[in-house]
Each structure stands twice: as C-alpha cells, then as structure tokens.
C-alpha cells in the first residue's frame, strides 16, 4: 500500500469515528463551551507554548507575528481525536469525538511581508446528558427519558499579515471573524406504548469581528513573543423552539411548533500571552508561555452569571529534541523531531482548571517536503466546587505541514 493510500485509509477510519461525540459536562458552565487547544501540530506537542517560537510551521495560531518568519508557502492542518472519561463519585462514562481543529495557509510576498489565512475550532459545547427511569401507568410499561443535549462551538476564521522589522523583530496583525453557534435542547421523552417526545431547544448564534496582534523579537538563540486578541461586542440571537415529535410513524396529527426569538448584546473576553523560546543547542530547543483570558471582561446582557467568571491564567512549557539535525546522511529516526510539553490552564470559573502532558513526534516527509505530526495528550480538568467530579481526557492530534515543493517551483523560476 502506498503512503498516500495508507494515509487516506487512516483518515477514513478517523472520520468514521466522528459519529461518536466527545463531550464535557464542565463545559456547560462556560459562556462558549469548553476552550480547545487550537495551535498548529508542533506547538501542540510542546504544550501550546508557541507564542515565543519563530518557526513557519507554527503558523499564526499562537502569534500572528510568526507570519513575519514565513519565507516559503506553508499549509498546515490538525485533526483531533478526543477521548474522555467522566468520573463522578466512583462512576465513569467514556466518550470519544473527532474534529478538524486547525487549517492554515501562509505564504510570503517578498518585501511586503507574508499573508496567512486560517480556520480554527476554539470552543466546543458538546454534551449529551441523559437520565432515564422505567415505570408503569395503568397496564402500560413506560420509560421516561430526560436529556440535555448541547452541541456547537466557536469557529474562528482569520486573515493575517506579518513582516520582519530588520533582523531583530517581526510584527503581525490579523483580522478574525468569530462564529459561535450552539444548540441546547431539553428533551422529555416517554417510550413504550405511549411514545412521545417534547423538545425545548434554544439555538444561539453570535458573530463578531476581532483583531489579533503580536510581536516577536530574537536575540541570538533567544526569542521573545507577545500576542493579544480582542473581539468586539456584537448581538447574539437566541431562537427558542418548543415542539413535540410523535415517535410513532403512523401518527395522524402534525405537531405545532412554538418559536420565540430574542436578541441581546454579547462581548467575548480578550486574551493575551507572553512566550519565550531558547535554542539550547542544534539538538535541543525549549519554549514556555504564560497567558491570560480576561473573563471578568466578558459581558452578556441576559446572563446572570457574568460576574461569576474570573480571569483565567495559563502556563505551558515544552521542549524539542532532534538527534542529528545537521548530519548530511542521517538515519530517519535521527531527523525525527521528539517533543514533550506540559500545560496548566485555568478555566473561566475561578475554581476550575485543567492540566495536560503532551508527547509528540514530527515525522519529516520525503525530500523535506513537510512534517507529519503525531501528538499524544493526557490530562485532567476539574472544578473544586464539585467534589469527586473529574474529567480525564486523552487526545491524539494528527497534523500535516506541507508546501515546500509548491514554493520551490515558484522560486526556481526566479
């Protein structure tokens, strides 16, 4: 089987898993659901500490200033397979999900800098919470189901520009369009001889514009980076729909649907990050980052919970090792990139946080045409207000970074 066919088979297997959804109960508490890691593959492998790393494979995901380091066209994509154990007082349920996490493309424009475009999934609201009980009514055996089903999340489209300033710094700026869509349904269902479903669902949509900006400066082997994001306030729309759905196919009657619509102001939280990286030797490289999301600045006209969100700090650190980066005829494992990282992130509510360890490897593609990233992550998240409740998560991130050949052919024509 050729490499391409194997890769396609692998992707097919992954996509077939997409019918099973991963979820987070803790994410219910947060304005846009659970925040997701949405860096490029190499950054994910070092815990997301990419703000201070000057490397074109890191794209503009961590810092738009990194676009100033782009001197070839680079395409990157990351797909995430999420595994989750929900643990509550000794009970456990396991879940899985799959989603594309990042798609990005950046290319140089000579002396006027570089342009970049990207899509990333920033938050996820997925939850399928269900309670059930059996009972008798008259001579009938019935089952009552009560379910809270939530799905959706925040997608972020960006267009950015970056340019180097002499040799010691790069700056970048990006326009972002934020799309938040979430559907939350409370479902009451009775099954048996009396079979009916009543669905009370609210579909929330919010779209807004934002800007991101960043600076990176390098001194010898040391690079410092800072970036920030600000999203302007906008109008969110809730459409509440109440409908009954006859489960029996031979029902003679159609159900009437009740729809209510409301609009309100919403302002997402700004965020910022400070990162640094150091090339210790040709083989070793280390990076770290601290950041904050200013949830206290989040505002929702209708939410009574706005004041319960607090500033969320995050810290990440990671390292990379390449056994023989400069050998002329190395063995393959000697040019593989081995990475490890750790991250700790506070969540939007004051007593909630998560940590994760990451291990990754970057597999160089033939003729230096790119990098295939495999990143494994293990971590836990919790909220101290809910004793004995933990979410244990593991992730497999698959990233592809490519584009060198495309660019070289252009270069050859110079």
């Amino acid at each position, binding site marked *: 089987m050729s*490499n391409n066919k*194997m*890769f396609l*088979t*692998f992707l097919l*297997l*992954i996509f077939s*898993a997409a019918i*099973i*959804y991963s979820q987070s*109960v*803790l994410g*219910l*508490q947060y304005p846009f659901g659970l925040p997701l890691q949405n860096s490029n593959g190499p950054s994910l492998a070092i815990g997301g500490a990419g703000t201070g790393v000057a490397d074109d494979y890191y794209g503009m995901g961590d810092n738009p200033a990194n676009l100033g380091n782009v001197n070839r066209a680079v395409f990157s994509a990351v797909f995430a397979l999420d595994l989750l154990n*929900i*643990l*509550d007082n000794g*009970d*456990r*349920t*396991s*879940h*899985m999900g799959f989603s594309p996490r990042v798609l990005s493309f950046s290319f140089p424009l000579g002396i006027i800098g570089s342009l970049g475009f990207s899509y990333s999934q920033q938050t996820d609201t997925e939850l*399928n*919470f*269900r309670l*059930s009980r059996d*009972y008798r*009514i*008259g*001579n*009938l055996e*019935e089952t*009552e189901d*009560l*379910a*809270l089903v939530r799905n959706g999340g925040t997608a972020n489209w960006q267009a950015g520009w970056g340019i180097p300033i002499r040799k010691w710094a790069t700056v970048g700026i990006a326009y972002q369009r934020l799309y938040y869509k979430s559907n939350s349904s*409370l479902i*009451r269902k*009775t099954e048996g*001889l*009396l079979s*009916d479903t*009543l669905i*009370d669902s609210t579909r929330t949509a919010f779209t807004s514009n934002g800007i991101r900006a960043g600076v990176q400066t390098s001194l010898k082997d040391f690079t410092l980076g800072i970036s920030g994001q600000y999203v302007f306030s906008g109008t969110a729309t809730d459409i509440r729909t*109440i409908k*009954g759905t*006859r489960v*029996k196919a*031979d*029902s*003679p*009657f159609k159900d009437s649907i009740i729809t209510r619509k409301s609009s309100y102001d919403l302002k997402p939280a700004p965020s910022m990050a400070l990162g640094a990286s150091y090339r210790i030797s040709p083989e070793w490289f280390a990076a770290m980052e601290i950041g904050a999301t200013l949830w206290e600045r989040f505002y929702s006209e209708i939410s009574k919970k706005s004041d319960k969100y607090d500033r969320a700090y995050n810290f990440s650190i990671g390292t990379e090792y390449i056994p023989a980066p400069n050998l002329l005829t190395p063995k*393959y494992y000697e040019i593989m990139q081995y990475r490890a990282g750790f991250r700790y992130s506070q969540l939007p509510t004051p007593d909630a946080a998560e940590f994760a360890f990451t291990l990754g490897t970057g597999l160089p*593609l033939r003729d230096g045409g790119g990098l*295939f990233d*495999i990143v494994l992550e293990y971590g836990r998240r919790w*909220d101290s207000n*809910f004793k004995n*409740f933990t979410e244990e998560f593991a992730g497999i991130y698959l990233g592809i970074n490519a584009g060198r050949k495309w660019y070289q052919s252009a270069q050859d024509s110079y």
Partner: protein
Amino acid sequence: MIKKITRLLITMLPLILACSDLEDSTGLGRDIVSSYNPSAVNIDQNFQTFYRNNSIVTDAFSIPDQNNTRFGIHTGVIAAGSKEGYTTTGFTEFVIGKNVGRRFQTKDKLVAISLSFDTISFGTRSLETHNLTLYSCSQNKKYSRTSDPTGMLIGKLVRDTSSKKLNVEIEDSDLAQSIFDACLAYQECLDDCPDKKDPSCTNPCDSLKSTFSFCLFNENDSSFVRLRSPVMKIAHKRTQKINKKDSVITRIDSLTGASYSNYIAFEDDIGEVKDKPLSSSASERTAVFQIDISSLWDTMSTTGFNEILSAGLELRPLSYENLDKKDSLFSVRHYLSDELIQDGIVLDSLIGSGKLNIEAEYDKSGKMTNSIILFVDRHLQSLRSTRPSTVYLYIQVNKFDDVKNISWERVEWRKPVFNVVLSTFK
C-alpha cells in the same frame, strides 16, 4: 519509517476503539448540569403520570342514531342491494357542459340515450336475476339513506348479451330530449355570437351546465351488486355534406362518463345498534364514548404540569365480525372532541387519514385479546384553553388496505381506560 508508524496507527486505533467502553451519553455530573438547568436533572419535575380506569366513561353508544345524517357514503363506485342487515343504494350524476357540448352540432337529431354500468361483483347469483332499477332523482338524494325507490322510473338494468355490462335506456322522451337539449346548448349559444373570438360573448357559453341525477335501487331483498361509475351513451344523427349535398345521415354514439357516483350503506334497523359502542366499516357507524375528563384538568391545575406530553386511551374490542370472512385485519381511526358530532361528512373531515392497523387476536376461550392505544394528546392540547369536563371519543373501523372496495368489518368495543403523561415548560 513514516509508513511503519502510519501502519501501526491504523492497526492500533480500531483496537483501542473496540476495547473502549464508549457511550454516546452520560448521566454523571448532575450537580454541574443542575447549576446550568435545574430541571434537567430531576425526572420528577418533568413527568407526571395520570391514570383513570373506565369509570370515567359516562356513556357508550354509536352514531348515526337516525337516517337523515350523512354517514356511510362511499364515492367512486356504486353498490345496490342488501347484505346481512345492511342496505345500499347507488347515486350517480352527469354534468353536461362545454366538454360534452363541443362534440355536438346544432342540427344533430336525438336517436336514443342509455346508461351503461360495468359490473365489479354480483355474488353467486347470475347477473340476470338481480332486480336493479334506475330512477331519475333530484340532486338532494345524493346522501339519501332509504331503500324505498323515489323519483321517476327510468327502467330496469338489462345485461348486455356480449359482456358483463348492465344497460338501461331512457325511454321517457321528455327526459331524453332535455338531456339532448343540454348537449346542444353550448353550440347554440356559440351560434348566437356574431364574433366567436369575442370572449365577452363566448364565456357565458363555457359556463353553461345542466346536471342529471339518477338513483339505483336493488329491489331484490337478498342480492348485492357492485358496479363501476356509469357511462351515458347519446346516439344521434348528423347530416353531413358530401359533394356539397346534404344527403348522408350518420349515426354517432357519444359517450359521457358520470361526474360523480356514490353508494350509501346503512343498517336496516338503526334502533338495534345505536345503543352499542359499535363501529362498522360499510355503514360508517361510529362508536362514541362520552368521557368525563375534569379530573385531568384538576390534576394539571394543582400540580403545575401544563403540557400534555403523551395521552392515550387504551381500548379493547369486545367482538369483531367480518361478513366477508376473508381475513381478520382491520384499521381504526379515531377523533376526540368536546362536541357530539352528528354529521358523517363533518366527522369524516375531522377524523383525519391516520389509521392504526390491527389483526384480531383471541384467547383460548374465544375472547378478543387485542389492546390498542389511541393517542389523544394533540386533541387534548387543543382543548386546554376551554377545559371541557366532557369529551367524546369517536372510533371508526375500515379495511386494512386502501383499495377502494366495500368492506364489512364490524367491531364492538369495551370502555377505554385513560393514560396520560404530563410535562411542563418553565
């Protein structure tokens, strides 16, 4: 190397997925879910059951209870005769307007008019022994429930020797001429128009219409015949010019299909059946249960559960009968209202097309064991604002399949019991 790693992932991933105990939902984290939506974690706050046995059924009977109602109307075909306590009479009408009239010329001369019926079934007796008579009757006899012939006798239906068709000729010259005049009226009207392309003159001609109605009776007490909608054959002569001479007269037979046909089926003795909760497919007899549901509204008021999530009346047949005895399959339609409906056509428009298919089942002692649930939640939702204390449940039975064919299912019902699951919206 990358090939090996990809192969390892392809092998390992399905293994990991197969060995893991993955679920699509969770019931854990109630406290967190409760902080988001308190009602999402408490089943008691979302469901309330309500059950009443058959003591809330305050009356059981069937409709129609008299003969001037519009029940038992079956359109598209004609049936006439008697069968085990049922009588059927047929009705058909012809509308003669532009479409018929354009085939005629004003100088056409009437020869004869007859009606021809294709037979569908006529039992085991020979076709000639049935005593089918056609009468000219008024349009208001369309839904007439009487076995006594009315109107002007046209004649007895006679079998065509070469087929299974039954024919009758309209011998009354006045009626035949009036039908023929109606055929010519369109062309005569056009002839009066100086400009035949002037719509202001021709449009009134297009709307000229005459209707002729006929009733079919079977005057043999013990036979039953089913017929297709009839065709009217209008034979007339026409003078045609050949070589500029009016010399050739041709007979032309113009065929016109009936615009509407039906048959009405009704019981010979309504008094015998109207006091039983009985459903009959042929006569469209409808079982009715009068139910006191005031306790449902009281429960909804006192508990605060304001949504009827599901409601069903559990119903059992007492007896099932099929005069054709071909199968034990039948279908049930139902409707719930706070009004006692006495008009079959009104009820038919309300009862809808949904049906529940049932096969009659019996225990060893011969008692019927079927138990069916008739959903009434949507009916009750529509009554929430007025909260009537008394409602009427209407039950009709019909053939299992949808083929247009007379069927003879008859079901008597036991009193139903009432099951409701209530819910609420905040």
